[in-house]
């Protein structure tokens, strides 16, 4: 069968909502797209451990410390799960990490913003994980089987993370004046970057065409972003905080919120390395990897000795 015929058959399966499995025929571009997207997702989980890990040692109560530690452990687990799912596409984790270190693979830009106060642990769980869930719930129906199944598992844990984050913000918003101020400040700093997490407007999203055709992506950036805003605004109001958008307005006709302009210059600048923490995050990951080299070598040498005996 020729490549063209295979591609037609592939598209028929996609259109029939079949799940594509690792050994199935798939166009090279589909495979590449998935590797890019899934590894970016895996790297995001792992790099995301840094801003939150940064606060575990300073968590303000034993309970808060326990929950945050468990949460970050979950994120690491998601990373592992997603790396494994990506490996089903014929690439190794070492290669994926190499690409990250070379700057060829990306991770969610939101983690290039610093986590400055304890309220940021709330904002990250509530807004960043909240935006991620909105996207991931949609991805549970993605066409690649291992990715879809990973999303089902991950979504369950992410909704716990979002509640954890909201609990932190809510209790701070109901706390002392200083706590309230920290809560509002965290919302101010994380609101717009969270909206940017959905990616450029549909009209400016170059890869969306194929992704939608192949049902990797099931809903557009703008649809998902709007859903997130509609869901989150009432959560903000409930705890007495203010969305940092003077143009935010309920649109009766659309039964949805209209919102202000997103600063896309900032979005692209941070993606291209201009965020306050891009250099730090990557350096940290590289350092841990380099520092761990002697440990990995020791484990390999020991295993080899054991195999001989």
């Amino acid at each position, binding site marked *: 069968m020729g490549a063209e015929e295979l591609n037609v058959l592939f598209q028929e399966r996609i259109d029939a909502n079949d799940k594509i499995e690792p050994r199935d025929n798939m166009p090279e571009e589909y495979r590449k797209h998935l590797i890019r997207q899934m590894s970016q997702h895996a790297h995001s989980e*792992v790099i995301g*451990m*840094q801003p939150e*890990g940064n606060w*575990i*040692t*300073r*968590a*303000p*109560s*034993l*309970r*808060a*410390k*326990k929950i945050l*530690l*468990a949460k*970050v*452990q979950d994120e*690491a*687990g998601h*990373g*592992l799960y997603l*790396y494994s799912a990506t490996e089903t596409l014929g690439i190794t984790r070492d290669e994926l990490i190499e690409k990250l270190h070379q700057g060829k693979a990306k991770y969610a830009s939101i983690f290039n913003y610093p986590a400055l106060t*304890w309220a940021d642990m709330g904002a990250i769980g509530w807004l960043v994980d909240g935006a991620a869930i909105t996207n991931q719930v949609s991805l549970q129906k993605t066409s690649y089987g291992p990715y879809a199944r990973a999303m089902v598992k991950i979504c369950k844990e992410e909704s716990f993370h979002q509640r954890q984050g909201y609990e*932190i913000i809510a*209790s*701070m918003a109901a*706390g*002392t004046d*200083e*706590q309230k101020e920290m809560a509002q400040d965290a919302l101010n700093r994380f609101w717009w970057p969270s909206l940017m997490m959905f990616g450029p407007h549909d009209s400016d999203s170059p890869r969306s065409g194929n992704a939608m055709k192949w049902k990797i992506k099931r809903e557009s950036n703008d649809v998902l972003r709007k859903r997130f805003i509609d869901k989150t605004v009432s959560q903000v109001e409930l705890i007495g905080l203010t969305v940092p958008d003077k143009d935010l307005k309920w649109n009766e006709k659309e039964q949805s919120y209209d919102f202000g302009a997103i600063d896309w210059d900032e979005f692209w600048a941070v993606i291209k390395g201009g965020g306050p923490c891009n250099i730090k995050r990557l350096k*940290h*990951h590289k350092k*841990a990897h380099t*520092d*761990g*080299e*002697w*440990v*990995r*070598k*020791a*484990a*390999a*040498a*020991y*295993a080899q*000795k054991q195999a001989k005996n």
Partner: protein
Amino acid sequence: MDNLNLSKFCIRLGDHCLIMAHRQSELCSNGPFLEEDIAQINLGLDLLGQAEALLIYAAKLEGGTRTADDLAFRRPERQFHNFMLTEQPNTDFAFVIVRQYIMSLYLLKTYQALSKVEDDTLSGIALKALKELTYHERHFAMWLKRLGDGTEESHERTQTAINELWMFVGELYEEDEIDFMAQKASYAPTGIEMKTFLMEHITAKFSEATLETPHSIYMTTGSKKGIHTEYLGYLLTEMQYLQRAYPDAKW
């Protein structure tokens, strides 16, 4: 054992767990590979859970004027009673493994005794912790073998960690009045029982890992009186920062 002394006994044990949990959580995103990163913070989470349970109980036994959070976040350095070994920094992965392996043995022996006491709260905490410590010991012992009998570099780093940490091991079988009271009530093994247990296991495991057990190193002392190495002050500064900076806030 009266409530106040039992409370002090629980605080000591809780402090060991709390300070180790802190050191383990510092490893987050610094592991040599992702699986081990997850493992190390998971073991830290177990220790944190034990610390919380012990400090909650200690606070109750004290009479309820302080909470577990007060004990963790409002006590100054000189009132902490964790072993100096537990506060030693994560100099490299070998230091983590050696510190945690030795402390896992200590906790195993301690919880074994506690799991049999009539006090339901304590035996409950100990029984749960025993399950956790069984795999902690297994995990760290496995790494000890990999590092000791891995490459020349890993062997050297691990032997260095052992040599530099060894002076803190003596505290693990030291005894004072609280220990004597706990031993009398069968809450804890005697110093000599603990020492024998530790040395037998450590010597055997070190030898299996081609590592040497140090001899004639002076054993330092002090944590039972609240004397520590300089590392604890920095650790507490970080850990207690929010509670100290915003004393009226609830989190």
